[in-house]
C-alpha cells in the first residue's frame, strides 16, 4: 500500500515536472503575467486563434465564384514575347540597341550586366489572332490558341524579383524570403479541403526538356501554419504518395487496429498536456487511412476513354509527364482537392530559345488547352480557377550571340503574361498593355500581390481578413499590399 502511494506520488511528481517544463518553455515568450495565463489557457502563447490549427469557421467570407484552383506553374520564366505578347516593332528594330529611355534604369542580372550592347530581337514565332475575341497568340501554342475564347490573358503582370528563387518564392508565398506559407497552405487554412479523404493541397512536378531550374519543397511549405496544410507531392509511378501504402506484411485491418490504439494513447497524452499538435497528429493519421482508399481510386488513369487520351495527347498516360499531371490534376480537382499545383520546369531560355521553346511547347500546349476543355465539358470550369504562367518574363534584348533563328533572352520582371480561365474570370479578353518594345507596362499593371488578392477574392475570401498571428503581428498572403483586379471578373 505504501509502495503504491509512493509510486503514485512519483508519477504525480513526474507529471508535474513535465507540466512545469512545458510551462517554462512557453514562458520564454513573456514573463510575469505569463504565469497564471498559460496555466489557465494553454493556447495563450501558441500564436493562433483556436486550438492551434484551424480557423474557427473555415468558410468563405462571401459567396465564392470558384471553389478550387489548378495552378499550372511554368518554372523558369516563359518568354511573353514568343507566346502572348506580339511586338512587331522588335522585328523591325532587330539588332539595334535597346534605347536607354525604354530601359529606364532597370537592373540587370549578372548574366547580361557584362554585355556591351543590348541588341533587340524580334520573335522567331509568328503571331495571329484567334477566336471571337481576336486575341493574339503565337504559333508555338496552337492548342491554347484554339481555346483562347475561354481564357483571360493578362499581359501586364509585374514582379519585384529578378532571379528564379526569390521570384518563384514570391509567387508561391507572397514574399521573396522563403519561410512563409504558400498559397495552397493559406487556402487549406482558410477553406479546408472539400473532400475529407484527400489532402487540400496537392503538388505535381514535371521536368521539361529545356533549361530547367529547381523547384523545392519550400514552395509548398506550410510556413508558420500548422503542418497539416503542407502540400502533398504526388509522384509519378505506382506509389503516388510516399509512405501511404501499407508496408509488406500488414493489411488494412491490422492498420485500423494500430490507429485505434494510437489514438487511445494520444488521447491520454492530450489529457495530460493539452497540446493541440497531438490532435492534429491523430487527424492526420485518420486522413492518411482514408487516403489509402481514395488516392488509388483517383490516380487510376487506366479507365480513361480513348477520346480523353486524344484530347490530352498520349503522354497523359505516362506518369511524370506534364500531360499526365494535367489529367491527374483534373481528376484530383474533380474529387474535391482545393488547390492543385503543377510545376513544369525548363522555361529558362537564356540561349537556344526558338528550339527549346518548341520542345517545351510540345510538352505543355496540348495538355493545358485540354485541361480547360475537359473541365468545361464536365461543367466544372465555372467553379475551378485555372492559372497558367511563370515567375517572370524575358527581355526584349538578346543574351549572347544573336542570329535570327537562335538567340536567348534574359530575365525580365517588369512585364510578363499569364492567363486565367474559369472560376468567375471573364473569358475571351486580354487585360493590360505593354509598350511597343515589350519592356514596360502602359496600361493596367497587375502586381503579384494584386494577383493573389484576386485569386483569394474569387474563392470568396477577403485577402485582408485571412490572417494568422505569428511573431507578434498578423500575416497574410498579400502581406501589406494587393487590390482585387475587378475588371477581369465576371
Amino acid at each position, binding site marked *: 500500500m505504501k509502495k503504491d502511494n509512493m509510486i503514485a506520488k512519483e508519477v504525480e511528481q513526474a507529471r508535474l515536472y513535465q507540466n512545469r517544463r512545458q510551462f517554462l518553455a512557453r514562458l520564454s515568450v513573456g514573463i510575469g503575467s505569463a504565469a497564471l495565463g498559460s496555466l489557465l489557457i494553454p493556447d495563450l502563447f501558441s500564436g493562433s486563434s483556436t486550438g492551434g490549427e484551424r480557423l474557427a469557421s473555415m468558410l468563405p*467570407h462571401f*459567396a465564392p465564384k470558384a471553389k478550387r484552383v489548378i495552378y499550372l506553374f511554368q518554372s523558369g520564366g516563359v518568354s511573353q514575347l514568343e507566346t502572348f505578347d506580339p511586338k512587331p516593332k522588335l522585328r523591325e528594330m532587330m539588332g539595334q540597341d535597346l534605347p536607354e529611355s525604354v530601359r529606364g534604369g532597370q537592373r540587370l542580372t549578372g548574366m547580361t550586366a557584362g554585355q556591351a550592347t543590348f541588341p533587340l530581337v524580334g520573335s522567331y514565332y509568328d503571331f495571329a489572332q484567334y477566336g471571337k*475575341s481576336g486575341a493574339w497568340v503565337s504559333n508555338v501554342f496552337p492548342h491554347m490558341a484554339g481555346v483562347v475564347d475561354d481564357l483571360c490573358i493578362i499581359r501586364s503582370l509585374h514582379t519585384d524579383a529578378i532571379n528564379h528563387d526569390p521570384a518563384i518564392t514570391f509567387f508561391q508565398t507572397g514574399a521573396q524570403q522563403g519561410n512563409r506559407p504558400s498559397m495552397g497552405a493559406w487556402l487549406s487554412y482558410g477553406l479546408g479541403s472539400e473532400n*475529407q479523404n484527400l489532402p487540400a493541397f496537392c503538388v505535381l512536378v514535371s521536368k521539361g526538356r529545356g533549361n530547367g531550374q529547381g523547384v523545392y519543397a519550400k514552395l509548398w511549405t506550410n510556413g508558420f501554419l500548422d503542418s497539416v496544410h503542407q502540400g502533398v507531392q504526388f509522384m509519378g509511378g505506382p506509389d503516388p504518395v510516399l509512405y501511404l501504402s501499407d508496408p509488406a506484411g500488414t493489411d488494412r485491418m491490422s492498420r485500423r487496429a494500430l490507429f485505434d490504439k494510437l489514438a487511445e494513447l494520444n488521447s491520454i497524452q492530450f489529457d495530460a498536456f493539452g497540446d493541440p499538435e497531438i490532435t492534429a497528429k491523430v487527424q492526420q493519421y485518420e486522413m492518411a487511412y482514408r487516403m489509402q482508399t481514395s488516392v488509388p481510386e483517383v490516380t487510376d488513369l487506366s479507365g480513361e476513354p480513348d477520346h480523353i487520351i486524344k484530347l490530352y495527347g498520349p503522354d497523359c498516360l505516362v506518369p511524370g509527364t506534364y500531360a499526365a499531371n494535367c489529367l491527374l490534376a483534373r481528376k484530383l480537382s474533380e474529387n474535391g482537392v482545393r488547390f492543385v499545383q503543377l510545376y513544369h520546369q525548363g522555361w529558362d531560355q537564356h540561349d537556344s530559345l526558338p528550339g527549346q521553346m518548341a520542345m517545351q511547347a510540345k510538352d505543355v500546349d496540348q495538355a493545358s488547352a485540354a485541361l480547360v476543355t475537359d473541365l468545361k465539358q464536365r461543367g466544372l470550369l465555372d467553379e475551378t480557377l485555372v492559372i497558367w504562367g511563370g515567375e517572370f518574363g524575358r527581355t526584349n534584348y538578346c543574351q549572347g550571340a544573336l542570329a535570327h533563328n537562335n538567340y536567348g533572352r534574359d530575365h525580365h520582371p517588369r512585364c510578363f503574361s499569364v492567363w486565367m480561365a474559369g472560376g468567375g474570370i471573364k473569358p475571351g479578353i486580354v487585360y493590360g498593355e505593354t509598350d511597343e518594345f515589350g519592356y514596360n507596362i502602359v496600361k493596367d499593371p497587375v502586381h503579384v500581390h494584386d494577383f493573389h488578392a484576386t485569386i483569394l477574392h474569387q474563392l470568396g475570401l477577403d485577402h485582408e481578413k485571412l490572417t494568422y498571428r505569428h511573431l507578434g503581428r498578423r500575416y497574410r498572403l498579400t502581406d501589406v499590399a494587393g487590390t482585387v483586379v475587378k475588371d477581369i471578373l465576371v
Partner: protein
Amino acid sequence: MKIIHSLLVNLLIGLVVFILFFLVFEHTIVIPPVLQVLGRAHPLLLHFPIVLLVLAWLLACFGNRFSLPPRSAAQMVYALLFTSAWTAAITVVAGLVLAQEGGYEGSGFQWHKWMGVALCFFSVLLLIYHRRAIGVTGRYDVVFRAGLSVSLIVLVVAGHFGAALTHGDDYLFEPLRSSQQKTLDVATAVVYPDLVYPILEAKCLNCHSSSKAKGGLVLADTASLLEGGESGPALVKGSVAESLIIERLLLDLDHEHRMPPKGKPQLTSEELALINAWVASGADFNMPLAALPVDDTIRQLATALYPVAEDTYDFPAADADIVKSLNTPYRVIRPLAQTSPALSVSFFGKTFYTTQSLQELTQIDRQVVSLKLSGMPLVADDRDVLGRFSNLRELALNDTPVDDTWCGMLAKLPKLHTLSVSSTSLTEAGLATLLSAPALRTVYVWNTGIEAAAVERLRQEHGHIRIEQGYLDDGQTVLPLNDPIITPATKFFQDSLWVTLRHPVPGTTLRYTIDGSEPDSVIAPVYREPFLITDVTSIRVKGYKPGWISSREAALTFHRTSRVPDLVELLTAPNPQYSARRAHTLYDLESGGNNHADGKWLGFYGEPVGAVLSFDTAIDIRTVSISVKQDYNSHIYPPKQIDLWGGIDSAHAQLLAEFRPDLPAAAAPTQVVEVPVVGDNIRYLRVEAKPYVPIPEGYPATGNPAWIFVDEIMVR
C-alpha cells in the same frame, strides 16, 4: 404720392389686361429676340412676389400680436400686397414670354402656368378687397385671411410645378430614393428598359420628357425616341454614324449642341459605351441580356455599371446540429458563405454511397442549393428523393447511371439553373425534356452520345439556354502512340528473367521480336503474356492500335551472367563524384540509365579501371562482358584496351586476354563489351581497362584524357 399710386394702379390693370390678351392670342404671338431676354428673367423675377406675398400673409394673419397701430399695419399690408401683385404680373408676363420659346408641354407645365396666372389675378382681387373693405379700419376679417391663405397655397402649387419643370419631377424627394442602388438580375434583365432607359432617365429626361421637350425631342418612350425632334430622328438602328443621339453625345463639351450640355451631369464613359454598343447592335428594344454571350460588349458593360444581384435565399437556415450530424467525410455539407443559409453538398467515395445517404439529406432539403453526385452509383429510388430538393440551383450528375427517365423529374425542379449530365446515357429526347425546366440556363451534355446536329437544333429552339457539348472526337485527329515500356528496365540478369511488355494506352497491340529484327504489324508475334529469356536477347517492340499512328520502337538488350562473383575489390579508386556503390556496383545486376550521373555508374578519370573478382568455387570462363557508357561529347569513351588475368589465386594469375574494343564514330549511349577468353578453374579474375589518353584524332574532345564509366562486369 397719390398720383404715383393711381398711375401704378392703372398700370397694374393694364398688365392684367395684357396678360389676358396674351393668354387668348398665345399661338399667334411671335416674340422678338430682344424680348426673349425678358422671358429668361422669369426665374429671377418670380422670387419677388413669393416673398412679398408671404410677408403680407404673416402680417395680416399674425399682425395683431406685434402690437402695431392698426392703421399702420393695414397700410403695410396694402403696400406689400400691392408690390406683390405688381411683381406677380410682371413675372407672369415674363413666364408667358418664356413659354413661347417652345419645348414646354405636358400637364406639369399647364398646372404651373394656370396656377401662376391664377395667383396673379387672385392677388389683384385681394388688393381690391383690401382697398374697399379693410383699408381704414385695419381689421382683418376671415374672408381676407382665408383669401390670403388660399393664394399662398396656390403659390406653393405653382412653385412646385415650376421647380419640377426645371429640375425634374421627383426633385424634392430624390435623395430619399437614390440610396437604393439598382442591382442587375442577369437572368431576367432586358437591355433597353433595364440598362439603356435608366441612363436616359437620369441624364436626359429633365429636358426631354413629355412635359418639357427641348428641341421637340422626347426620350421617355420608344416611339418618341424613334420619331425624334426638330433635328430629325434621334437614332438610326444599327448605325452609330448616322444616329444623332450618339453624335450629340460625342461632341466637344463646349459645342452648343453637345448633349448633355455643359454644366449638366454628364454620361460616364461606360454609359456612353453602352448606348453606343446598343445602337450599333441594332437598338433592339426587347433583347434580353441573357441572350447575349458572356463576352459581348453590352453584357460586360452591364456588369460594369450595376452590381449583379446576389441570389437571395428566402428560406431559413438549417438547424446546425442536424447539419453537424449529417456531415461525414463522404458526404460533405458546407454553407456557401459565413452568413448564408444556403448549403452545398458534395458526395465522395463511390464505394461508400448508399441510397440512404441521399435519403438522410432530405432533413435539410429546403436549404440544399448545390448538390454534387458525380460518379455515384445512383438508382431509380434516388430519383424520387432528388425531386424533393425544391431549392436546388446547381446539380452535378456526371458519370452516373442517369438516363432519360430522370429528365421528367429534373425538369420539374423550379430553381435549377445549372445541370451537368456529362458521361451519362442521356439521349436527345431526354435533353429536349430537360430544356423545359423553368429556370434552366446551362446544361453540360458532353460524352452522352447525342448527335451534334441534334444539339444544334435544340440550341436554336431554346436560345436562352447554353448547351455545352465539349470536345467531340471526330476521328480526324490521328496521334502517334507513345513508346512501349519494357520491364524490368535493368539489362542484366543471372540465370533467367521474366520480361513484361506494356503500353500505357489500353487496347494497344504490341508486336515484338527477340532475334534483333525490326518488328512490324504483320509477321512479328503479338505479345500476350510475360516470357522468359535465358541468354543474351535483343528485344524490339512496337505498338499498334486502330485510329492511331504506330508507336516508335522501344529496344533493350539483356545480358546474362552465369555467376555473380562472391567478392569484388577495386584496385583503383573511382572519381569521388561518380563512386556509386563502389565495388558493389559491378555485381549488383543493376544497370545505369542514360545519365552517367544517376548514381549507378562508376566513373574513372585519368587512371585505368582495375577490379578483382573472386569466386569461392572455381568456374570456367568463356566470355567477360563489361557494360560501359559512351558519350563522346562528354569525354566518355569505351576502354582502349582490356586486360584479363585469371587463375586459382592472385599468385597464380596468368594473362588470359588482351582485347581492344572497336571505337565506332558514332556510339550508342551504352555498350556491353564482350571479351572472348578461355580460362578454366578460375577463382581469381583481375580486369584492367585502360582509357584513351589522349582521345585520338577525329573524335570529339580529341586530345583530352577520356573517362570510363562502367556499371557491371559479367562472366559466362
